């Protein structure tokens, strides 16, 4: 499902954000991407959803070589990838419902389908009664649940989460992680970047550890 072959990403001549990274995730896998800040976790995720291009190496996502696909095909690749960020990236001037519906609107889904699927997804993440509120009026954990609902509503094959619990307290952290685990149970391949050892200990999944842009450990 996800494969990286000797990938290097260099922003400046001296600094390598990623250095000769190889990684493979099969369909339905769940893995943590661990490492301290600046280790290259976010860069690796950005490469996977084609927000960045690698300096060297090849990346395969769902059978497509990211290096070879045209710029105009990137949106279609992203429709198979849900992305969750630490800062949620929600629109506070829209309702919770609108934020989630966004993912389906860009696919050209019919309003009736959008209504059904968004309502079902918001109920699944426990926000069925808050869909008409602005995200700004929700707690951090609830806002992250909205972001997860948005990432999952069009049933992507892959879910990438960049420090999804970085701004949350321990109780909410486990709530969010359980949602990601549920998505994985339904067949979605999940890759979560985190530097929280407690999360990795609790959920006992494969851990790929990055340090200074290199993979230094892989429990898989």
């Amino acid at each position: 499902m996800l494969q990286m072959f000797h990938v290097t990403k260099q922003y400046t001549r001296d600094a390598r954000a990623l250095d000769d990274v190889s990684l493979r995730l099969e369909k339905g896998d769940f893995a943590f991407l661990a490492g301290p800040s600046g280790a290259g976790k976010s860069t690796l995720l950005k490469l996977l959803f084609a927000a960045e291009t690698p300096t060297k190496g090849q990346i395969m996502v769902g059978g497509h070589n990211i290096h070879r696909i045209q710029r105009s095909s990137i949106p279609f690749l992203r429709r198979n990838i849900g992305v969750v960020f630490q800062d949620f990236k929600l629109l506070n001037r829209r309702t919770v419902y609108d934020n989630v519906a966004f993912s389906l609107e860009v696919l050209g889904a019919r309003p009736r389908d959008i209504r059904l699927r968004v309502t079902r997804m918001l109920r699944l993440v426990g926000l069925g009664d808050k869909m008409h509120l602005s995200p700004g009026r929700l707690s951090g954990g609830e806002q992250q649940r909205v972001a997860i609902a948005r990432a999952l509503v069009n049933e992507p094959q892959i879910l990438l989460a960049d420090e999804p619990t970085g701004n949350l307290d321990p109780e909410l952290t486990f709530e969010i992680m359980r949602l990601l685990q549920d998505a994985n149970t339904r067949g979605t391949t999940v890759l979560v970047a985190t530097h929280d050892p407690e999360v990795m200990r609790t959920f006992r999944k494969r851990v790929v550890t990055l340090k200074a842009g290199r993979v230094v450990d892989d429990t898989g």
Partner: protein
Amino acid sequence: MLHWMRYFAGKAAQSVRQSVVMQLVAVTTIAVAVLVLAGLLTVLRNVDRVAAQWAHDARLIAFLADDVPPAELAAAADAARGWPGVVDVDTRTRAEARAELAAALGPDGALLESVDPAVVPASLELAVAADHADAAGRRALADRLRALPGIGAVDEVTYGADLLERLRGLRDLLRVGGLVVGLLVALAVVFIVSNTIRLALFARREELEIMQLVGATDGFIRAPCYLEGAFQGVAGGLLALALLTGLLRVLREEGGAALGVAVGGVPVEGLPPGLMAALVGGAGLVAVLASHLAATRFLRGERWD
């Protein structure tokens, strides 16, 4: 398809609502730019019409050096009537011309008594057919007039050719000017619309980043921008034409007489509907092009920080 159109129109309307002042400034500026072009085209059209009218009403007048007896003048007129391109011939002896001038002067006609009779010459006036009214045709008739036997020396032949040629020169100059102004207007529209759209996109950058994140194509993001640009262009074009129509009405009502003299008695006309539609459509198309440029520049700067 209808669903998409409704969605894009809704997004465009939302963007317009979110920046009403900016939209007004853009539409007004486009209107002023289009008004300049439309005004120039109106002047060009009326100069064209005056030139055509003058060419159609072309008359050649031969002022005679000597006072030719009426019988000889009539014989000369009869001869001229047979020339190709001559529609009608009119004659005036010195006495008739003097009487006409005195009548035109009215109470001041008495002044003529102290003037040398030779100052008001006898004349032979030819009305020329439209197909002989070009410069070459008129020149040929003038030469034949000069060679006409029995009427003595021809002091001067006047046929308004210089004025007509100058008018045609002015028309050509206006055409070139129109092209230059048209180009400048197009550039102005591109500049205004692209900047307005860029500002609107910048204001919506978070939303657009998320749209890209969830798989929106560039075309999906651009479509509402095209509609917004088209709205600005078409609204600006319509406003310009409304202003021009109003301006022409005021000119006709308030300065009708002066304007009539200025354009040789030819009533001033506005632009034909086809040209007006082309101006509005052109402004809309140029604005859509500007939206495309602005959206492309914005989308190239995609970031995920």
